[in-house]
């Protein structure tokens, strides 16, 4: 499969963070699979089903992908088109790399604003003013803290939210603020990882923002004896 450019020196903390993110990705996918599998077994063998199974699986799916996006930038693993950049001289390549990092930064920034504006009312916070750029917080936007998921059971550990944001009303399902929290969190993490990539590119430690298959292809051609001398 794909080759990743991950040759940067690592501190113990960075290694811990890598392991944490990797285990989390594995765990989310594993849970999605097990819930779906268990539901099939329960339906076929016991004529029963976890009524929340489908919804939770889809939430985990969204968590997996959203969390993973920033990991992909950290490891320079996202797919792109390198046909043009490869024919440019190295100076041109560097300019393109900086430009594309700036484009990603703009993407992450706009996504961050959109994510906050989307999530904030569910958490009893205010969205931001302004269309492109946040110009302070809005006032008097109705909150959506009451908005619960379709079938996900309420978890005891989140009961404190009832007093904190729901005016003391009890939740009979998990409020949407919990699954949706991944959206601003991932956007913030994305913003961080893209900024770090930009810095690496400016300091000459990283060449591209997308995964490069070139080196790997060369190795394989040699391995398959396509270069015979």
């Amino acid at each position, binding site marked *: 499969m794909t080759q990743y450019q991950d040759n940067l020196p690592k501190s113990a903390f960075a290694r811990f963070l890598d392991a944490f993110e990797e285990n989390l990705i594995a765990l989310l996918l594993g849970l999605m699979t097990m819930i779906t599998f268990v539901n099939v077994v329960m*339906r076929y063998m016991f*004529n*029963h*089903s976890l*009524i929340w*199974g*489908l*919804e939770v699986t889809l939430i985990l799916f969204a968590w997996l992908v959203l969390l993973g996006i920033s990991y992909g930038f950290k490891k320079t693993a996202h797919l792109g088109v390198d046909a043009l950049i490869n024919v440019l001289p190295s100076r041109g390549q560097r300019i393109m790399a900086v430009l594309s990092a700036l484009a990603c930064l703009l993407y992450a920034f706009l996504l961050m604003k959109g994510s906050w*504006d*989307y999530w904030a*009312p569910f958490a009893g916070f205010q969205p931001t003013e302004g269309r492109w750029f946040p110009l302070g917080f809005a006032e008097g936007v*109705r909150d*959506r803290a*009451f*908005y*619960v998921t*379709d*079938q996900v059971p309420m978890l005891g550990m989140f009961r404190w939210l009832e007093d904190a944001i729901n005016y003391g009303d009890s939740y009979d*399902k998990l409020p949407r603020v919990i699954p949706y929290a991944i959206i601003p969190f991932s956007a913030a993490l994305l913003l961080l990882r893209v900024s770090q990539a930009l810095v690496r590119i400016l300091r000459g430690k990283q060449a591209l923002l997308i995964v490069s298959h070139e080196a790997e292809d060369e190795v394989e051609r040699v391995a398959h004896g396509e270069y015979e001398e």
Partner: protein
Amino acid sequence: DPAGCDDGEMVIKFSHVTNTDKHPKGIAANLFMERVNAEMDGKACVEVYPNSTLYNDDQVLEAMLQGDVQMAAPSLSKFETFTKIYRIFDLPFMFKNMDAVEEFQNSEVGQNMKEAMVRRGLLGLGFWHNGLKQFSANKPLLEPGDAAGLKFRVQPSDVLVAQMNALKASPQPMAFSEVYGALQTGVVDGQENTWSNIYGKKFFEVQDGTTETNHGLLDYMVVTSVDWWEGLDADVRDQLATIMDEVTKERNAAIAEVDAQNRQAVLDAGGVIRELTAEQRAHWVDVMKPVWAQFEGDVGADNIALAQEINAKH
């Protein structure tokens, strides 16, 4: 241009999930669009986004509160997160027929329900009918016992889950797009829906037959955002409300006909329809009615009493 939106006209986006020419909701939404675009030309125009192309029923209410869409008509069970009083419409055998539904919705209690979500930011503009639900399965359903042990696809609603448990059937949540295939291969055994959905989604093709139980209601409410609605000029708002009322009356009055057409279409296409004797029907009622007690606190005992009072008249 009375057909579409011109520069300077206020655009009203109406997002829904059905087709535009056969489903009762789609027909009503298009009628509303045509009338607004003709009668309010220069002031306002409606753009209809059918077939879930813009939002599905789960996303559309969020988008409305966000100000990205102005009108939608989700099924009543979608409002249960806003206020549980709407559960009364999901309870089995609560309404005798569509005339009783119509009278209940037009009563003071029913009309007040349109404003039950105002503090959450949504305002109801009108109830739109689809009709009463029928059961279909891969074996004949005549007595409630026939449904026991079968797997039924239901919408993920507490009331519908309780209803299936009362039948000793197993409620299965499933994405709507997979239901046809699941019924065809037997992953699930049956489902419940109105005639227009059973015909429109072709479920009858892959079922042994459909039993005319009329056991539940599938209706919609046209909603809009309170903030958007209150920000309109008074004359625009009044004109929109008037057109909405007239469209609602006209299309709701035609629902019996649309329902009958779809029922006939199922027969014409070779589907089997089973009718219940009065005695058989009473058995279904006996088994399913106890569900009411479970949700009495949510919907109000007086509201249930009113519905029964109205039933007695029809």
